[in-house]
């Protein structure tokens, strides 16, 4: 429980950082913002990796399922965002 307050502090501060940066993203890029932020929310992949390595069988299986879909989220998210952003060009 003693870790709770520092973690909550980090959470609150990160929310504020999020609000500050994201309000500056122009509507032009809102779709890539969604897919890109989605990709980074696949950070759960870390928890999935640790779970797969658990000696407990149930944990391992749940972790494996989580690992597969979190990887889809991460790889799919970054790739599709990259593909989209490559289309935003300025012609001269």
């Amino acid at each position, binding site marked *: 429980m003693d870790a709770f307050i520092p973690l909550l502090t980090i959470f609150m501060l990160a929310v504020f950082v999020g609000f500050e940066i994201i309000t500056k993203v122009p509507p032009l890029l809102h779709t890539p913002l969604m897919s890109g932020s989605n990709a980074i929310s696949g950070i759960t992949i870390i928890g999935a990796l640790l779970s797969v390595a658990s000696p407990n069988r149930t944990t391992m299986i749940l972790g494996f399922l989580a690992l597969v879909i979190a990887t889809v989220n991460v790889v*799919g998210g970054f790739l599709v965002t990259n593909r989209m952003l490559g289309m935003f060009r300025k012609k001269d």
Partner: protein
Amino acid sequence: MRAQGPPVDSVFINLIYLAASVLFILGIRGLTHPRTAVRGNLMGAAGMLLAVVATLLDRQIFGAAPQALAMILAGVALGGAIGATLALRIAMTAMPEMVALLNAFGGGASALVAGAVLVSASEPSAQMTVATVFSGLIGSVTFWGSLVAFDKLRGLLLPDAPVVFPGQQLLNGAIGLVALGLGVMVVAEPGTIAFYGGLVAVASVLGILLTISIGGADMPVAIALLNSYSGLAAASTGFVLDNNILIITGSLVGASGIILTRIMCKAMNRSLINVLVGAIAEGTSSKSDADAVYAGRVKSTSAEEVAMLFDGARRAVIVPGYGLAVSQAQHQVRDLANLLESRGVEVEYAIHPVAGRMPGHMNVLMAEADVDYDKLKEMDAINPSFEQTDVSLVIGANDIVNPDARTDPASPIAGMPILNVDQSRTVVVIKRSLSPGFAGIPNPLFAADNTLMFFGDGKQAVLDLIAAVKDAA
């Protein structure tokens, strides 16, 4: 679960996590300008790679049985293959579906991880169990809600219209209470996994019920909100694992989704609650309203007539709507714009915040068609210029150009900010028929003196226009 190695190990790994978090924040900051956006996304991806590699160095994984390492490889290969295939194959018009699917997977993964950790926790703390409840609840709602959104966008099983029935809110409330009760039981009896299973099951039903009541055109709000949920689920899993990077990243994404949700709601002048309960479906319109608005006043036009209009025009504005995405007309529209520009007409695009099915949907489509992003104008930027516009070409849009929003306080869309196309000299509307838009109300723009209706499929109509403009020369 916290069978981490010696402190040095853990400090090192956490420092790498910190570096990855910084990369995520810089990455999102890169998205504030199209010039730096590609690099920003790459920074995010680099942060993710760094975090994953650091995790693999964790004693629990490094010292794990070969079988576990094989499963990790298999899981990453499988997920990576599916993700890459989806990302490279998906059509730009289908981006809302793609994001819905990604939201689903993010939320689902968080709920699964929280469950996996709970199963093997020997002495779970209160922080851990409470966070597990949040992950399970939000993650499951996100997973199923996003799948419903995906289904609606694809038009597979569920109707585009909101699914509403009497007592729906009461039922949702009751299910929410059951979920809450199960959540309390998970905290009280963390050893009994059945409670967590029950929570996930009930939350799944809740996720489905909460999303079926949201209509197709309100999907921008739904997707933004689910995006936020997927972040919050990840943050909450961070509390389960005592892991900073999950908390930081999850809250960034949570904040992003909330901001987009608010922007979308504002662009429709509706409250979030109003969108969630599908209230606009109770619109007061009827057939007779439509007759009163349109009777004898709608002027149908031809490609030749519009070509003549363009011939004398100095400035034209193109307004893309969801109909453009449906008929995949973005490349033809670009060709038409290029042709007009070669004849000396100034062409710009007016993008309404809720045009299409997700935030920024129209921008992505026009960018795909190789339109310079400087020509894609936001509503507030372009609205003052309609008075100096000779021809506004509306393609497959309806409610976002309905002047009733400005003039009729009794209209269901009263107060919604719209593109003021009616102020341009001539408005040409490409549309299949006079059928109402999502709000279910007639649009007086179609019967206005300066409006010409060009009935037909978006892509075909634009192709006809191109041919006519070429002939006119």
